[in-house]
């Protein structure tokens, strides 16, 4: 199963921690919610997932 970056918008509070600590600038804040702007650049490092205080972003699939 290939990996996929998923955002659960209704849990996101737009704190932008994921945007700031993404090493590949995959994310941005739009309308106060985290949004994927450059998915091709994502290396699935999970730095956004482990520091999201609201569990609103995660990597699905793979190991």
């Amino acid at each position, binding site marked *: 199963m290939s990996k996929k970056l*998923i955002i*659960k918008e*209704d*849990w996101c*509070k*737009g*704190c*932008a*921690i994921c*945007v*700031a*600590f993404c090493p590949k600038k995959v994310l941005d804040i739009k309308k106060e919610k985290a949004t994927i702007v450059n998915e091709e650049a994502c290396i699935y490092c999970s730095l956004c*997932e*482990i*520091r*999201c*205080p*609201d*569990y*609103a972003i*995660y*990597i*699905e699939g793979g190991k």
Partner: protein
Amino acid sequence: MASPIIKKYIREGTLPHIWCGGCGHGIIMRNLAVAIENLGIDRDKVCLVSGIGCSSRIAGYMDFNTLHTTHGRAVAFATGVKVANPDMTVIVAAGDGDISAIGGNHLIHAARRNIDLTVIVMNNDIYGMTGGQFSPTTPMGDLATTAPYGNVDRPFDIAKLSVGAGATYAAKGSAYHVKDTTKFIQEGIAHKGFAIIDCVSSCPTYYGRKNKKGGAVEMMELQKKNFVPERLLERLEPEWIEEYDKTIRAMKGGK
């Protein structure tokens, strides 16, 4: 849908939680879930006890046996749970005000007894839930609603206080340093005796705003720049439940 770790350990219907955007508490709660997963402990064998405050909402969110108790008394309730169920992994999650102000005496005496509890402090330097009053860990000179001209008190170092009181495992983690903090929580739970993990959390709503430390991201950057995760102590000493058990057996004529 949520990630597997959240699905497994968090009561999904309670999310989104009440913690403000960028609050470090959510990160520390996830660290605890990951630590339990890594240790492979059965969820039904874990009891999570909390007191009052922002941090104490954790008992409502996490899917273990949970107790949401009175202000500062989480350690006392946890002691009772542990005495009645010595095989249970008992974890206390508390805030800095909860554990070091009103609950200060419970903390030091549990540490002195070396009872097998793990205390996770979500230390955000302020009373968040009640509107930003200074707590025993607010740094000297910093502003709070009850210290509009700067706090004149010197702060507690909760981990060192516990070591002084007799804790046998103590570490300092932070919301930013996820991997280290998770490792410390894991070690603390596996440790036989009183373990404390003092985790720097961030309160962008009150502490950050009052002290012009910026928003959620800037406060995380500050932790990255200024904080070093550290294990202060890990040693084995007689554990209280086992010692008590010996006394009971002796009273029964050694049976």
